[in-house]
């Protein structure tokens, strides 16, 4: 056997996309060597429960291992991050100095929680971020110890889910965000206002329009307070910095790929782009780390940080990895996610970027059970449901079909849909962070 035949496929990143990608390779008939490299010492596990049931103490942090859905016959290199990629020699370098040869490479290194900067208090004990199982275990232990006040910085999905758990635990909690409402960047303030009301009713102190400047510690280096940009301050002995995520592309620096903290840019077939814009026939990417042209929205580059994309894109990339150069199919995905907080099941489809109007087409915001549709230039582009999930698939179809907005429907429970301004904070940069599950 030649060295090339021995190298086989290497998957970097042993989480949702890496696992589902590896399974799809085997299911697709790939029989050669398969190596899965993971920075964490753990086998693949599921992250969504971490900011929900694990923080609430209902599930142990190590109870969310993902089921294996196909025999992998893989060589696992866990607890071993890759630190470099040499495309000319088709080698990935591991932290321990190992050089792993590949014929084809699947990049599935996901994203990392954006840390609080060290000079303004990021290294104090009691300041947490939440991305992985170990983060969740440490944060859960700190919450169970009964802090006097929890401060959550960032009212995105993870910040709000964490706030909901803290209230379930009976803890005093303050949430601060620079925007006027929670989830303002993903859902707009029109819908985000409903979450603001939920926070308030649950007894969370929500401070909109507030920027934290620094955290201060006691003599032992434990956080005791946060100073705000407006000069105010709040005492807090536990901080959750829920500031979104950056893509784990640091190890690709110098590899001559279009990679930065916003993702590894791919073509429509999930192939990584070299610096000159040509797709690499032997390097694919999937999941949170990938930035790709999305057909449903005119091929603009997005990176989608949601569970459903990791699963579907990994399967698609694996399929293309096994197909010939003339049979590379474009990845056509409609982004979708769910979240649960304050007893409400939130589900969304589509991307809200650039929405110029929102219509509540089922239920009402006041009842906190509704379905809202987002439009842009007369076209339906996204929808979100609060405890109305069964209606959502119809709107997913409407988005894919490019149906007009406002949607025409048989009004059953309201005469005319309530229209509102979406209220997205400006400037609304088209960045990967727009979809940050944070």
């Amino acid at each position, binding site marked *: 056997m030649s060295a090339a035949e021995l190298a086989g496929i290497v998957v970097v990143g042993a989480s949702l996309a890496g696992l589902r990608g590896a399974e799809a390779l085997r299911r697709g008939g790939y029989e050669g060597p398969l190596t899965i490299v993971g920075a964490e010492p753990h086998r693949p596990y*599921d992250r*969504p*429960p971490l900011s929900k*049931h694990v923080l609430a103490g*209902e*599930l142990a942090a190590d*109870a*969310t*291992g*993902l*089921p*294996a*859905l*196909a*025999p*992998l*016959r*893989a*060589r*696992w290199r866990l607890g071993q991050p890759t630190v470099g990629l040499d495309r000319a020699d088709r080698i990935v370098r591991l932290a321990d100095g190992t050089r792993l040869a590949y014929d084809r490479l699947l990049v599935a290194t996901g994203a990392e929680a954006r840390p609080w900067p060290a000079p303004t208090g990021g290294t104090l004990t009691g300041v947490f971020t939440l991305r992985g199982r170990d983060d969740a275990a440490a944060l859960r232990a700190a919450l169970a110890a009964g802090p006097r006040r929890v401060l959550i910085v960032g009212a995105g999905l993870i910040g709000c889910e964490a706030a909901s758990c803290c209230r379930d635990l009976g803890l005093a909690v303050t949430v601060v965000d620079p925007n006027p409402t929670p989830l303002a960047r993903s859902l707009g303030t029109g819908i985000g206002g409903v979450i603001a009301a939920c926070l308030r009713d649950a007894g969370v102190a929500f401070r909109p329009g507030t920027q934290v400047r620094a955290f201060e510690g006691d003599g032992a280096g434990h956080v005791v307070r946060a100073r705000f940009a407006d000069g105010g301050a709040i005492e807090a002995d536990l901080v959750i910095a829920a500031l979104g995520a950056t893509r784990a592309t640091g190890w690709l620096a110098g590899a001559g790929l279009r990679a930065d903290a916003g993702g590894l840019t791919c073509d429509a077939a999930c192939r990584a782009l070299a610096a000159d814009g040509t797709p690499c026939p032997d390097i694919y990417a999937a999941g949170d780390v990938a930035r790709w042209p999305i057909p449903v929205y005119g091929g603009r580059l997005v990176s989608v940080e949601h*569970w*459903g994309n990791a*699963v579907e894109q990994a399967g698609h990339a694996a399929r293309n990895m096994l197909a010939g150069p003339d049979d590379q199919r474009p990845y056509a995905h409609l982004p*979708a*996610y*769910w979240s*649960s907080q304050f*007893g*409400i*099941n939130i*589900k969304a489809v589509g991307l809200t970027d650039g929405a110029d109007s929102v219509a509540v087409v089922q239920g009402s915001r006041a009842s906190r*059970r509704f379905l809202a549709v987002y439009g842009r230039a007369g076209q339906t582009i996204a929808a979100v449901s609060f*405890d109305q*999930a*069964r209606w959502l698939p119809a709107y997913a179809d409407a988005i894919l079909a490019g149906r007009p907005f406002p949607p025409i429907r048989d009004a059953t429970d309201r005469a005319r849909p309530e229209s509102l301004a979406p209220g997205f904070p400006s400037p609304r940069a088209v960045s990967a962070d727009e979809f940050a599950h944070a």
Partner: protein
Amino acid sequence: MSASDGRDPALRIVVDLNRCQGYAQCCYAAPGAFVLRGHEILFYDPSPPAHRRGEIERAVLACPVRAIAVQTAADEEDVA
């Protein structure tokens, strides 16, 4: 609890909550592993005890949108 003996697949499950419509058929089939909260939040135990295998398999079949995935392959040792 979910430790593998190398023959039986460990009992690990994951639900695709994008797909799940909250109709709760799984909760009737496997009340010890799936619970519906509020109007439509599905809470489930991702690593239920081995004795629930039968009811979990019934829940998988009962789900009208096939949202529940169960470990099918045995845990593998690292292939050196």
